């Protein structure tokens, strides 16, 4: 018996035992990291002080914790989970551990969309989200269409994604060079992927979008489990595989683009989180819940590291995630070489 079935009323959820253990371990670790994020800053606040501030106490230091540090920590957790889920979706669909949205150019596409909105329109939070999603969807469609013919083989799709990524990155640089100086400076800081200066005002719409996407994903989870058993089984149990794939990809693009709209392209979280989560959960396929938790852990951890590493300079979190994630990718490739 390695699975537990939770029942409540007419609903039942089947959860692997290993996943439950993982939850019991990861959730306290995440809570610890979040607390650390709330304590750390220009001045160190004791955990007791943090609890007091969250309870609504008045006073300058409490306002700093509630208005500055709390949104940043929440952004780290939620965005990390969203990136982890997006990575898991894309790695499932492409059946390749390297088929994550940042490698195949979706981040760059979402960034192009956001830049277009900033330079052409007013660049409000809602416009940014829409622009990023449109950019991400177009990039995904381009990669998909270009990889068609001769089957959607994993590595081929990844390398075509890299090429699309290169073109879009060049386009982004060009847009930034053409833009007004103020826009250019903001865009360059943003291009590394950063949670610096994220406030409550930036988070309302993105959190709502991510919540909706997660609910949609939960509704698809049964079909997803059946699809994981193989296309033939899925079809006989009434799952329309092609439509499911399209829905999944759209949810994945939505998650990636929403994060990019607020924080810029944060590389490699989506690549590493699903694989680490899968190993921790020892699950077949690439399970979504461990990917989400690992993503939250990685992003929040990387953001803390980015703040501490060269203090008092707060690095963009994307710098840390890129350096660590790139090493991870090389290790992943080296391991596969040894195995084959």
């Amino acid at each position, binding site marked *: 018996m390695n699975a537990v079935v939770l029942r409540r009323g007419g609903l039942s959820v089947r959860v692997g035992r290993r996943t439950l253990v993982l939850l019991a371990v990861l959730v306290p670790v995440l809570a610890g990291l979040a607390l650390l994020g709330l304590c750390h800053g220009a001045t160190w606040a004791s955990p007791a002080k943090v609890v007091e501030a969250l309870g609504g106490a008045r006073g300058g230091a409490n306002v700093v914790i509630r208005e500055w540090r709390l949104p940043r920590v929440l952004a780290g957790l939620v965005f990390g989970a969203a990136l982890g889920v997006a990575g898991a979706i894309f790695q499932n669909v492409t059946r390749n551990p390297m088929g994550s949205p940042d490698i195949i150019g979706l981040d760059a596409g979402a960034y192009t969309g956001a830049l277009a909105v900033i330079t052409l329109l007013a660049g409000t939070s809602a416009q940014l989200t829409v622009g990023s999603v449109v950019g991400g969807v177009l990039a995904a469609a381009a990669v998909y269409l270009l990889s068609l013919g001769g089957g959607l083989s994993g590595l081929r799709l990844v390398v075509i994604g890299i090429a699309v990524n290169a073109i879009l990155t*060049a*386009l982004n640089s060009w847009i930034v060079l053409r833009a007004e100086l103020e826009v250019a400076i903001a865009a360059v800081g943003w291009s590394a992927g950063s949670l610096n200066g994220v406030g409550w005002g930036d988070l309302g719409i993105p959190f709502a979008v991510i919540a909706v996407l997660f609910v949609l994903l939960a509704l698809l989870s049964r079909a997803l489990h059946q699809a994981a058993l193989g296309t033939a089984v899925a079809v006989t149990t009434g799952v329309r595989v092609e439509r499911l794939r399209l829905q999944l990809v759209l949810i994945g693009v939505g998650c990636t683009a929403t994060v990019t709209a607020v924080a810029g392209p944060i590389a490699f979280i989506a690549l590493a989180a699903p694989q680490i989560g899968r190993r921790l959960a020892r699950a077949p396929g690439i399970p979504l819940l461990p990917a989400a938790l690992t993503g939250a852990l990685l992003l929040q951890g990387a953001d803390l590291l980015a703040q501490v*590493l060269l203090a008092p300079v707060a690095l963009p979190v994307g710098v840390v995630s890129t*350096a660590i994630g790139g090493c991870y990718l*090389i290790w992943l490739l080296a391991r596969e070489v040894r195995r084959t």
Partner: protein
Amino acid sequence: MTATRRRQGGRVALLAAALVLLAGVAVVSIGVGAHAIPPAEVVRALLDRDASSDHVVVWDIRAPRALLAAGAGAALAVAGVLIQVLSRNPLAEPGVLGVTAGSGFAIAVGSALGFAGSAAAELGLAAVGAVAAVALVYAVGRRSPLRLVLTGVALSSVLAGVTLGLRLLLPDVFDQFRFWSVGSLAGREQSAMGLPLLVIAVALVGALLLGRQLDAVALGEAVAHTLGANVAVVRGLTLLLITVLAGAATAVAGPILFVGLIVPHLARRAAGASVPWLLAYAAVLGPILLLVSDIGSRVLLPTGEVPVAIVTAFLGGPVLIWAVRRYGEAAL
């Protein structure tokens, strides 16, 4: 026999045509800029210099820049041919494989630590970075063409992340070396480039001399032995040339991607499978491509310049997609 001779004649004619095109592009490139100079005046300035301001611009700024573009273009293109022939991987390229990024990173870090300053020191740093990158990428990714590309991309992004971190840590130091963060020819015509260009020229001649041996090696190890080629020596020399060419190009122009990918694919149309011809065409087409990209980099923005590496990425991305679609399956 006559068919072969006719083909040989066709290749010579095509190469001559490419050389004429190269001369034309160079003249246009020297004429284009904030102050446009008509082609006839450019030619007059090059043949018979007088003291007019146009001639000063041509001799002191535009011609050195064109020479720089031509040298870097030839080096990158020939390095691309060598790496593709050696690894039998049509997707290989010094930029995509992270060799260029390795050189650029080594120069930036070396400069920050105070090692650089002279052209020789920069060349040395570039070579060290290129060797390290080649060794790492080849060790991890040699099993499959696509995997090699992925390893190179991963290495490039790690180095980019570290460089960005260092820039934020030491903004003053790294601002002086931001040229190397993105490949550009602007402003480099003033730096000392005699030594790097000489190194590139020597390495190009070396590559052309090695072409026949490489042709034999490309046919497979057994065939190469019977043809009298020492496979290990040829491979070692080729790796050395790749490192020197990619390193020297990066030292003068910064990391420029995709030139080494595009040009061999173009050259293969004319040269077929012959490695010596492939190298000869690459040595002429590479400069043409980089000169055209450099013209583009000056024309694309009304207010200033686009780094030439952005232009080559625009051109090179589609070529990579085409190459993957054409050759990718065979490699899987």
